[in-house]
């Protein structure tokens, strides 16, 4: 028993002796802990500062991106607005060009009327008209210079022909066109038709021919001659497909067909209009018409 105790004693001494640290040991340990804490705090502070810097940088970047985005949006808006304005200005120019062309047309007609008057006066005096050879509208005499429309009025149902004035001054194409248009708007389609047919016969190469052919259709329509109107409109579409009058003429043909009760024919023409002139106003109207056509 005593021998067993003796054996265990060193172990007990060894185990209990380690639990009794000296004061210095504790102070050293405390200092170590403090140092460790200070190191950790410094490290945390550094990390926090780094994080703050990162956050600040991110905020700066975000603000920059926001500003950039706003600028881009503004620029997009400005560009869109500018494009819209350009579009509107183009539309205005288009409208004004149309108006100017009309004014030019009227001025040309007035000029031709004045030249005709001068020709008449000079003919009465027996003197040649000044500038008659160069500027006066003289009907072409060549039979070869004809377009399909030049022959069409005489072959159109209900068409009549007007001979060129025998002797004296001949009205020019602009004058004929202007007078005919006035007659049409005044409610005299017969007189308008006569004037337009004269224009088509005497000035088959005039740049007014597509318009004259179109308004010939209008005159026939006002007179109640549906076949004549259809023929004139068809001539515009087939002979002058690039004329601005072509989609209108095609639309008028379709409406004429619809009036006659030929829904299939009308539908075909409206589809043709949408296919051939998709950007025209008449195409938009045709699409609407196709929806409601029964």
């Amino acid at each position, binding site marked *: 028993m005593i021998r067993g105790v003796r054996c265990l004693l060193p172990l007990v001494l060894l185990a209990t002796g380690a639990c009794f640290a000296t004061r210095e040991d504790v102070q050293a340990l405390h200092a170590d802990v403090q140092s460790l804490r200070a190191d950790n705090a410094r490290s945390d502070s550094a990390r926090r500062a780094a994080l703050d810097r990162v956050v600040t940088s991110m905020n700066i970047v975000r603000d920059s991106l926001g500003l950039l985005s706003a600028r881009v949006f503004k620029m997009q808006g400005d560009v869109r607005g500018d494009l819209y304005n350009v579009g509107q200005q183009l*539309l*205005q120019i288009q409208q004004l060009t149309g*108006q100017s062309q009309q004014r030019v047309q*009227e001025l040309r007609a007035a000029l031709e009327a004045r030249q005709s008057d001068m020709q008449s006066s000079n003919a009465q005096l027996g003197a040649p008209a000044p500038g008659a050879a160069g500027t006066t509208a003289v009907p072409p005499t060549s039979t070869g210079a004809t377009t399909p429309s030049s022959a069409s009025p005489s072959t159109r149902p209900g068409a009549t022909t007007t001979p060129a004035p025998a002797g004296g001054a001949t009205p020019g194409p602009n004058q004929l066109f202007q007078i005919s248009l006035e007659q049409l*708007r005044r409610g005299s389609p017969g007189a308008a038709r006569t004037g337009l047919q004269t224009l088509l016969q005497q000035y088959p190469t005039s740049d007014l021919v597509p318009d004259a052919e179109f308004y010939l259709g209008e005159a026939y329509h*006002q007179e109640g001659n549906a076949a004549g109107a259809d023929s004139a409109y068809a001539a515009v579409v087939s002979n002058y497909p690039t004329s601005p009058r072509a989609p209108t003429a095609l*639309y008028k043909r379709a409406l004429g067909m619809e009036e006659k009760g030929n829904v299939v024919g009308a539908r075909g023409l409206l589809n043709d209009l949408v296919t051939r002139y998709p950007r025209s*106003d008449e195409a938009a109207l045709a699409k609407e018409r196709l929806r409601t056509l029964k």
Partner: protein
Amino acid sequence: MLESRSFPRSLSFALGALLAVLASPTAVRAQDTTHAVRIGLTYQAGTKPGVVVLAVTGAWGDSIQAIIARDLDYGDRVNVIGLPGTPAAGSLQSLGPSVSYPLWKSLGAAAVVQATVTSGGVHVAVHDVTGAKIVQVADFPLPPTGGSAEWRLAVHGVADEVEQWITGTHGVAQTRLLFVRGGRVYVVDSDGWGERPVSDAGLALSPAWSPDGHTTAYSILGSRGWSIVTKDVTGGAARTLPSTTTGLNTTPAFSPNGSSLAYSHGDEAGTDLMLVPLGGGAPSRITVGHGSDNTSPEFSPDGRRIAFTSGRAGHPEVYIMDVDGSNVELLTPFNFGDQNYRSNPDWAPDAQRIAFQSQIGGMFQIMVISLRDRSVKQLTSEGVNEDPAWAPDARHLVFTSSRTGVKQLFILDSESGRARQLTHAGGARLAAWSHSLGHVR
């Protein structure tokens, strides 16, 4: 008839009356303005013939004389001598209903209107003073209720017929006008008498007359937006046009034959004009505005074309097109970049001109454009003047003006520039002038 013995006394009256006439504003006006009117009698062309409307004896005689004289004056084609309400009237009134050609000639009268009340109406004779003879005679039936709206309309018809005899042009007295005040549509006689509401209380806009003068169409704000309704002018219930129950439907206009109605229909895609047959059928779109606003359609007198306002060029301008929507043409001229705009066209019944409102320096004025040569004439300059509408004679226009400080309706003679105030309660606007209502009772 004046007896020869009393002639010197009458002559002294006449001289007094003549002085009074010369001193009156009417006479001054007549001196300042000369007009090319067609006259049926032997008068000098290019002048306004002087006309005397004699006193009318019998029941409602004073009213008959006053209405005829005033209508002739408002017609602006004759110079009414001794107009009721002027200083000369009293002197002329004392002369009675007799005719003395030398006396009237000395007063500058070219014609004398002599009306006599009969059992069934009124007997009217027009004397040619220069020829010293009666040139026109007719009996006009009048409704038995003197002073009623129908009776007044019939007397206006007499005045129009007399104007036709004297000038060769039918007057516009036998007409009525629709207008809007405080969200209600009202109707009023052409002389400003008999104003009464047509629509119920609410928010109504842009009334239009049917060609027969029986019906009006106007837009009204309901629970589902602005719709178009038609209603008898004399009363009855309003009927909503079936195709206008949704969206923004405004500015209706009847076609001249009354078979269809054009109006503007707005939705997310913009505002376009629609044409709907009134006998039944689906409406069809007749403008392609590409998102712009197209409003205020007005038919040409032959019904083949339509004038309208469109913003397709960036700001509102007046355009004309065929009734099927094709052949669109800019009508009102403007300079590139011009921010002022033009709108609200009204086609003159003679088909030669279109009236519209044009912004000048931020204020609207009434303009007229000739369809023949596209020349533009400004008709107003005082205050803000807008919403023109032609009378059936294609000479007079009704419009809204702020010249008195509040919006009122004024009638303007487009030839002389003479204007008269039609309404006197503030806030009247958006007037529409009827056709002759000779057949309407």
